[in-house]
């Protein structure tokens, strides 16, 4: 697989490429080569630490959108068993930007769904870059309602730039589709665990994001508007995204601090895309633990606590 590097990873790219080439093609018994490899290893460890130790919100934004990052279907494949994908909103179409179905997690039958991005040009187009039409949210709702009827816990994964802003989407009720999910998810009498795995873009993210536990991966972002969109409006300059990313407070640490999320899921060093299995194992452990903790909570308390979870969000004073 060709590894893609972000701008701020450039110093690392040169080192890692040289290292890979030496290991693959240089004669192993040459002491000069092994000395060089050893030196490179040390250097790479150091540069990695320098690169990833203090990521800025903008760098995390880039990581959250990294083209090699594991997407919903990758996590489903690595974490769940017996996944059967369900299709369509039963009204207009099947939206490939949202996927979901029935599966088994750690032996228990569950409903799992999430936004789905593509990895190559063709798939990106097919998945509409992870931007759902109303039918995507309606499919998600339908699958969740199925889970409720058969008493299955719900796991959702958030990874979207936002709801698709298009003519058809508006005509077919984008706003209403999102709104209905918010209202219905608030009262589903089964445990819901939400994981922000990549990009948490605005209302399109929240549309599958109401739950009992909101977990967020270390390099994921979650924001009311994309940093670029915010910059275009408030700075009147779309290139001021890095400033907006800072101001909006969109990182996992920020959201934990604001009590919007419950837990940060640590990622492999350098990001989830550098170690799929490692990332999946951590996500699985966290989701299973939270589902297990919510499983035996009486429904009335489950719903009361979910209500309070969102009810207390906000900052204001009472004079």
């Amino acid at each position, binding site marked *: 697989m060709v590894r893609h590097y972000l701008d701020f990873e450039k110093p690392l790219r040169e080192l890692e490429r040289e290292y890979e080439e030496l290991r693959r093609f240089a004669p192993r018994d040459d002491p000069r080569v092994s000395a060089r490899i050893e030196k490179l290893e040390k250097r790479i460890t150091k540069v990695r630490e320098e690169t990833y130790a203090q990521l800025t919100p903008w760098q995390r934004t880039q990581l959250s959108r990294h083209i090699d990052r594991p997407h919903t279907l990758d996590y489903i494949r690595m974490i769940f068993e017996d996944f059967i994908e369900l299709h369509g909103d039963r009204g207009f179409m099947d939206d490939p930007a949202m996927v979901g179905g029935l599966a088994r997690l750690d032996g228990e039958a569950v409903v799992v769904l999430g936004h789905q991005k593509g990895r190559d040009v063709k798939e990106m187009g097919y998945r509409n870059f992870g931007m759902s039409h109303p039918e995507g949210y309606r499919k998600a709702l339908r699958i969740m309602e199925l889970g409720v009827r058969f008493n299955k816990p719900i796991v959702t994964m958030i990874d979207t730039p936002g709801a698709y802003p298009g003519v058809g989407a508006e005509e077919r009720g984008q706003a209403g589709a999102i709104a209905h999910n918010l209202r219905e998810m608030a009262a589903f009498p089964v445990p819901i665990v939400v994981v922000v795995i990549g990009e948490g873009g605005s209302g399109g993210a929240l549309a599958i994001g109401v739950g009992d536990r909101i977990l967020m991966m270390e390099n994921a972002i*979650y924001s009311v508007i994309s940093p670029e969109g915010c910059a275009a409006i408030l700075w009147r300059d779309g290139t001021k995204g890095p400033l907006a990313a800072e101001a909006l407070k969109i990182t996992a640490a920020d959201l934990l601090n604001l009590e919007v999320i419950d837990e940060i899921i640590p990622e492999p060093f350098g990001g989830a895309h550098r170690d799929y299995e490692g990332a999946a194992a951590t996500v699985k452990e966290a989701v299973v633990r939270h589902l297990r903790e919510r499983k035996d909570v009486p429904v009335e308390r489950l719903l009361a606590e979910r*209500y309070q979870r969102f009810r207390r969000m906000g900052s204001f004073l009472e004079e």
Partner: protein
Amino acid sequence: MTWFKKKETPSQEEKAIDALWSKCNVCQEIIYKKELERNLNVCPKCSYHFPIQAQKRLAIVTDEGSFKELDRALVPVDLISFRDLKRYSDRLREAQQKTGLKDAFITGRCEIHQLPAMVGVFEFDFLGGSLGSVVGEKIARMIEKAIDEKIGAIIFTSSGGARMQEGILSLMQMAKTSAALSRLRKERLPYISVLTDPTTGGVTASFGMLGDIILAEPGALIGFAGPRVIKETIKADLPPGFQRAEYLLTHGMIDLIVERRRLKETLGKFLDLLYH
């Protein structure tokens, strides 16, 4: 480059004219201001519904003297010290001076044709009627109070959407208000949403579109994404009338378009039919 440059400051004469006359945004008719006000800020020539202030809206739709404001003391706080070209705290202060309100929403208990209801109204002049923590809290409280008193709720929207300057907390107001409405619904109490010009973004995508009954004023712009964003995304012209109330009615998204002068009567009828 424009050929006719607008003068920076209007002359005394122009100011005097502005104080007496308004120009319709749609048909360009020059209307005597007093005449416009008598007509509930609706253009007498083309029926364009001018945006109106929250207080005026309440005066139009509620029984005289029946409105009792609630939660006046809620004030916004800049929790994340947001700053773009201006500080959020400065923007708040300016908006408060401009409107005389603490935030972009007024709530209270009222009667319409002697029928009680909780009512909430956006003030668009306050930071574009954006949905922040105070607005979300006021809505949650008015819905909870409606449940306590076993009466319905009515919200008049006019908003650009979530308030970016409050970061993720503004997005979460969508979930908070929708959760409150889920409880109202479970109690089988009516919620009527009245969409006025303009209503977009997170407000449409939460309580805006959750009404048991969804009404709109004629010509109101209603949507999720703003028309400019959509145009930039699809790189094509938008269909005529796109995202206007009439367009939404045709596409099955709202129940009814109601002229401002019929609004009170219509709301009264709905409350009567749903209450009794």
